[in-house]
């Protein structure tokens, strides 16, 4: 744990070494997020409410998503690169260290771009989503659970590379699908897509269910997110470590 924190600190220093580009990337990401808020503003201006969702709900949704992505993809940036790192055997670097590999791997890269999301999301929540103390507490809990869901999901799909080879493309697809689907109101999706969002692409636990919790707290729903996070973490941990046993490092060309 201590060494993971030390690594994170080092990765952060490495990420912001180029200060101008660091600040610039943070600003750009915030611009991107603002573009989306503008879209939803225009949409709800036109439509009023749709399937029970209002502009205010979307604000809450975006504050959750951007902060989850900011922490997950910003501070633990390697979570979306596990597949690639297995393919090009850069995980060897971690395997020779006297520390647990998964945690170390996740802490080794900080992505400034996504820290922009983090800043944006926190400001958005504080400025526009009624940050009463209770709501702030619930929001924080949802963010932390969301980070677990996102990071665990990405580690899980990335670990497929141990078994099926390739250059980690399926992990990229999983990543894009998760982020895309988490950025739309859950209740706009019906039928099979909705099932998908609670299972294979667990975007519902990052934004959909938390937004509903922020409207009216329901212990059952909260327990659902906790369970989803726990299952995904177990799945990610075991898939990664099973994969490590089959790991063939740099020898992929022999296949």
């Amino acid at each position, binding site marked *: 744990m201590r060494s993971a924190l030390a690594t994170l600190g080092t990765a952060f220093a490495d990420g912001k070494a180029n200060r101008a580009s660091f600040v610039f990337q943070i600003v750009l990401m915030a611009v991107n997020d603002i573009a989306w808020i503008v879209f939803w503003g225009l949409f709800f201006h036109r439509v009023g409410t749709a399937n029970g969702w209002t502009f205010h709900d979307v604000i809450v949704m975006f504050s959750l998503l951007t902060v989850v992505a900011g922490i997950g993809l910003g501070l633990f940036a390697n979570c979306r690169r596990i597949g690639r790192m297995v393919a090009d055997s850069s995980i060897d670097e971690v395997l020779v260290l006297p520390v647990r590999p998964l945690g170390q791997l996740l802490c080794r890269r900080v992505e400034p771009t996504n820290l922009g999301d983090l800043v944006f999301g926190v400001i958005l929540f504080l400025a526009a989503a009624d940050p009463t103390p209770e709501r702030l507490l619930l929001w924080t809990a949802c963010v932390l659970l969301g980070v677990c869901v996102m990071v665990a999901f990405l580690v899980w799909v990335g670990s497929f590379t141990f078994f099926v080879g390739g250059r980690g493309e399926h992990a990229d697809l999983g990543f894009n699908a998760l982020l895309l689907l988490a950025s*739309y109101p859950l209740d706009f999706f019906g039928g099979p*897509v909705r099932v998908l969002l609670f299972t294979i692409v667990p975007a519902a636990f990052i934004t959909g269910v938390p937004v509903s919790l922020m409207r009216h707290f329901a212990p059952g729903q909260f327990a659902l997110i906790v369970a989803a996070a726990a299952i995904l973490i177990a799945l990610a941990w075991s898939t990664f470590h099973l994969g490590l046993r089959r790991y063939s490092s740099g020898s992929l060309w022999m296949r």
Partner: protein
Amino acid sequence: MAYLTAFLTGARRTLAARGDLSTQVGMMLLVILALSSVWHAAAVAHGGHVGAYTFGELVWYITFAEACTVPVPARVIEDIGEEIGSGEIAVAMLRPASVVGIRMAIDTGAALARQWCCLLAGGAFAWLLAGPPSAGAATVQAVGVAFLALLLSIALQHALGGIAFWLNDARSTWFLFQKLILIGGGVLIPLNLLPHAVASIFIPLPFAAIAYVPGSFAAGHGSWGLVIGQLCWLIVGFGTAFLVFARGERRLEVLGG
């Protein structure tokens, strides 16, 4: 002739990289799914349509708007910056053909191949979601307008990309360009659904000619006025691109890259 070869090379390269192509098309289908769910929710809340659009029209609108923006490589500025840095541009300048002309021909070939894949897959998907094309037989017009939109996007990107001759770190301009098209171009929301004042600012701009115009044609709301505007922007776009490169290349000759 050289330009035709360049065009075909670009197209072939796209079709050869099947993995990239299918990922790109797959992502586009996901976006169409997400956006059509959004408009479905909106249409249901308003008795079947939003503004002048029915749900079906909106789905076809999205499909064409996406098929005009997804296929264009958005990092032209970055690429040109790298080509200047690596000296690739200097080599291209030795050839007896326009650097920007060849570049655009390659990009057009690549983008057109991708666009057709997007239109085929996206069209099938849209049909599944919302029934046959809203524009009926006029969908052919929409396909033509979509090609013009693609050309315009490439021309504008090269005009902007020329900034790389002067600024070393202009990498992220493409990012802003993309966001402008997303909202101001009408990829996410048809421009005539925006508040009137906002719409009247965006519709005459070139971003609208890239997404909103082909989308409108696919939804059956096209008009020749929109195409004339598109053609005007095409002339401006290509003119600027050639001008910027001419200046940039001269600068490179003087400074020696």
